[in-house]
């Protein structure tokens, strides 16, 4: 099979099914919920997931903007053309909604985001799919050095301001440290990490965020945040870059790994 086909397959998987950790977190949120309106929202979300999987259609009509993270860079260079072809195939066949425009003229222009990374020996591709509603709440903060509580405040104020608009319950991706641009990238890569046992700082932020009571779709309820994922890098002693990426409950991602000439696609 042509490699571009496998890319299209990976995009299809990301668009029509959620990773098991996200589905589990939504089910858990439903079990814990007491608020009647919130229960109804979560029921709609879970029902929507079964329907999308069964009919093999995109979970959300906003099929988002695709971000590919590819490594090692030496191999990545060779598959860029295949990724382009794969995106074209997926756009036609799944299909994907034409979402990208020239930022000034508004003319439709197909586009995806591509990052070539260091590390690894065999080809690895991670795909993050993000819709416009949650993207409007991406934030970059330049805090004072060591201002740990400032990070918590940055997350909570953003969630407060965002209310129901980023389609909560959201996954919070935090990039802490590095340079301004590195922090932004880290916050995206954090969203590629499956939800698992949180570290103490992730847990602290999550518990506080869920006390806000914003709830599913901002209609009130116990779960505002499904999980918090943090990636760190050292930073200049005079600053503390903190980037925040909120991912809607349709937290779409998929991965591809090449091993001994065999391709594995999973979530």
């Amino acid at each position, binding site marked *: 099979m042509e490699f571009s086909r496998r890319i299209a397959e990976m995009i299809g998987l990301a668009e029509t099914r959620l990773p098991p950790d996200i589905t589990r977190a939504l089910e858990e949120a439903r079990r814990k919920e007491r608020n009647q*309106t919130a229960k*109804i*929202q979560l029921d*709609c*979300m879970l*029902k*929507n997931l079964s*329907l*999308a999987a069964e*009919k093999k*259609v*995109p*979970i*959300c*009509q*906003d*099929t988002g903007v695709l971000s590919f993270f590819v490594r090692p860079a030496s191999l990545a260079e060779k598959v860029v053309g295949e990724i382009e072809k794969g995106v074209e195939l997926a756009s036609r066949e799944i*299909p*994907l*909604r*034409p979402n990208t425009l020239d930022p000034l003229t508004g003319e*439709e222009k197909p586009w995806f985001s591509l990052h070539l990374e260091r590390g690894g020996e065999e080809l690895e591709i991670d795909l993050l799919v993000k*819709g*416009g*509603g949650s993207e*409007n709440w991406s934030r970059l903060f330049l805090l*004072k*050095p*060591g*201002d*740990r*509580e*400032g990070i*918590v*405040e940055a997350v*909570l*104020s953003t969630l*407060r301001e965002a*209310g*129901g*608009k980023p*389609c909560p319950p959201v996954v919070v991706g935090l990039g802490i440290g590095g340079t301004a641009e590195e922090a932004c990238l880290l916050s995206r890569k954090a969203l590629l990490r499956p939800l698992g046992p949180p570290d103490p700082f992730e847990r602290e932020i999550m518990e*506080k965020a869920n*006390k*806000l*009571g*914003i*709830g*599913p*779709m*901002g*209609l*009130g*309820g116990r779960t505002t945040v499904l999980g918090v994922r943090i990636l760190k890098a050292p930073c200049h002693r005079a600053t503390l870059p903190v980037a925040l990426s909120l991912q*809607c*409950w*349709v937290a779409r991602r998929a991965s591809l790994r090449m091993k001994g000439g065999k391709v594995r696609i999973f979530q």
Partner: protein
Amino acid sequence: MREIFTPVGEEIRKLRAGSLVSLTGILFTARDRTYQRILDTLKRGEKLPVDLRGQALYHCGPLVRKVGGEYQVLSCGPTTSSRLDDLHAEVLRKTGARLLIGKGGIGRQAAREVAELGCVYLSFTGGAGALAASFVKRVRGVYWEELGPEAMWLLEVEGFGPLVVMIDTRGETLGGYPMKDVERVLEDVKKGRTHSTSEVRKRLG
């Protein structure tokens, strides 16, 4: 769950914020560029291609596929309504539409204006595009097709819901989350922050 049929009339004044409804009739999709097109058309003194009086404007850019000359809606959940807050009242006033359907709610000022016009704002679960599409019986038509997902799609739906009434004609809004709880949590964090920032400072000398 109360069922409403479009076009609607004064019966929508009975709807109360917080209650659930389902809708049978036609959804007229309208988002950023559709709103603009409606207003531009009317500004030029031209007529709209369709009579919107009593109808439901749905903030949505559907994912549509053409199969054998017919349109098929694959996924059609709502988009963020508040992006259009500056225009809701003008669009409703000039078209006579009575229902807005979207997600995430709308701002306080826009909500007041919508209520004053005797209109109701309903929300459907964001992201639930496949579920929304399951209520679509067929595409009844499309205007301004060149706008793609932002064209005005006429989606015939049956029992579309559950929709939550977020703003009723009395201007009552669904409380959603208690703002005072949000402020309290943030206050606690801010208090902690002053303390720990000074701690950090001490350590840094």
